């Protein structure tokens, strides 16, 4: 089986700044690939390349076995790669159903918006994902952060995405809401999508992930299958292992 997405020694430089260098990973259908790293590790650069916002300038990037270089997010979308960004997943002042269909609006034969169909499909698609909204006419801005992420995820699933890229979907959320979002991530996975989950929280990544790519300063620190690593080791690796122990030591010193 060919992987949905495969990168091999992919790299990106902005002028003289090396944002990403020699990163390899795979995304398979029905699996979650987690990308972990601290701020500035190159997570954003990696997903922007996958999503078609930026272009890589080293290595190879294959979608379903085919070497590819996207020139716009639209192109990535057409290949079934949908991205849900952390803070800009939706347009707050627009209604839920208008957001849901943004960019792929249903139209009648005369070319006008089919509002009835839009609302019905939105309601159905959301309830299929287990999201129960009171009213799809309400502005998205009135939803909670978790609900917004869920609407964006449901949208990507509905429009036939094969790969779902989620940029820090749980970053700004409370414990309970983060749990709800992770539940939908798992649902998308079980529906056969390949999911790329970007996060800096190993406790969010480990339960749903199949594969973990650790980034640091634009380079791959390690890439593990779930069977190869446990949560403690993952946390330790992410925090920089020895560095954290040293820090812990230092902080204890302060306490005493």
């Amino acid at each position, binding site marked *: 089986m060919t992987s949905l997405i495969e990168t091999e020694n992919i790299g990106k430089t902005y002028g003289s700044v090396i944002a990403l260098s020699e990163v390899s990973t795979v995304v398979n259908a029905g699996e979650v690939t987690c990308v972990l790293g601290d701020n500035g590790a190159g997570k954003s650069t990696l997903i922007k390349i996958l999503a078609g916002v930026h272009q890589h300038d080293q290595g190879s990037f294959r979608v379903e076995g085919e070497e590819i270089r996207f020139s716009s997010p639209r192109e990535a979308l057409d290949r079934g790669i949908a991205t849900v960004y952390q803070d800009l997943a939706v347009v707050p002042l627009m209604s839920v159903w208008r957001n849901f269909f943004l*960019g792929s609006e249903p139209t009648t034969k005369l070319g006008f918006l089919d509002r009835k169909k839009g609302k019905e499909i939105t309601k159905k698609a959301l309830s299929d994902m287990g999201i129960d909204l009171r009213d799809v006419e309400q502005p998205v801005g009135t939803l909670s952060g978790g609900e917004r992420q869920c609407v964006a995820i449901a949208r990507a699933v509905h429009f036939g995405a094969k790969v779902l890229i989620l940029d820090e979907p749980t970053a700004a959320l409370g414990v309970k809401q983060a749990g709800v979002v992770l539940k939908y991530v798992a649902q998308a996975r079980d529906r056969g999508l390949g999911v790329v989950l970007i996060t800096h929280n190993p406790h969010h990544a480990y339960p749903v992930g199949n594969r973990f790519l650790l980034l640091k300063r634009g380079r791959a620190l390690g890439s593990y299958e779930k069977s190869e690593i446990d949560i403690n080791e993952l946390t330790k690796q992410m925090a920089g292992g020895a560095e954290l122990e040293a820090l812990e030591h230092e902080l204890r010193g302060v306490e005493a």
Partner: protein
Amino acid sequence: MTVTATAPPAADERLGKPKAMDQLIKRPEIGAMLGALLVFLFFSVVTEQFLSIGGAATWLDDASMLGIMAVAVAMLMIGGEFDLSAGVMTASTALVTALLATQLGLNVWLSLLVSLAFALAVGALNGWLVMRTGLPSFIVTLGSFLALQGLNLGITRLVTGSVQVSGMRDAAGYESAGFLFASTFQIGGTSFYVSIIWWVLFTVVASTVLMRTKFGNWIFAIGGASQSSRAVGVPVVRSKILLFMTTAFAAWLVGSINILRYASVQANQGIGLEFQYIIAAVIGGCLLTGGFGSAVGAAIGALIFGMARQGIVYAGWNSDWFQLFLGVMLLAAVLVNNMLRRRAERVRR
């Protein structure tokens, strides 16, 4: 546990009955409607001519010229941009038409066509510059506003030796073009300018585009959150450029109505009008930050303008008071819009 949490997921039981008041309050134009009603009643009571059919013809005409532009500017503002060159563009387009027809002896129809091409090119340039540089449209169009103002005066003086172009009446095609843009029609023995029909038509088309088409959906989206829109595949650059071109098209329409009605045009015309357009759009419920507003609201905003401006004349007051009225109206509109919008969002929780 609440009762609703255990209810079957038909979902609607949590909605309750939508109250008529709440439904109304969600509409961006509601504030403007109330304002228009108030102004209408006030001048109907205070003056005699205001409510007469002749009076209505006058304030409707005043509102129509402003309204065509206000609706276009509102669409642009919903899309998250400003166009300060809109006012002076109404003069530029009229000047291009007039110079071609009177100096080069072109047929008026052909002159209008060239003028339209010129307007669309300026609109596209405005849009392209804003998107290309990433600068605020406020600054970019301030530049094109000043540049056009200079061009209007400079070229007119160079060609005619004065600051106005006149003599349109002798140009070929003036009559037929005038029929389309500047004729009058009779209702109850009173002449109404055809510009009123253009205004209504433009508002209906704009409102339909905004509420009932894909492109309209995109306008709200790019004004509300252009990065998110781009991420889901909305052509942000193309849409915004089209909006700037729409504003330029409206300026061409108003410019053409002007030149064909008065047969002459001043090179310094239109300056300062750009703010009236924005004010009318804001009174009509447009947010300055984009992503929210309505075309019908902007048309009503223009109606308030027209009614107040002519009402003050009928009341025999000094027209200086109009500016005071304008300022108070604008502040009131912004406050009311803000309150209504917050309420609209809270109602839905």
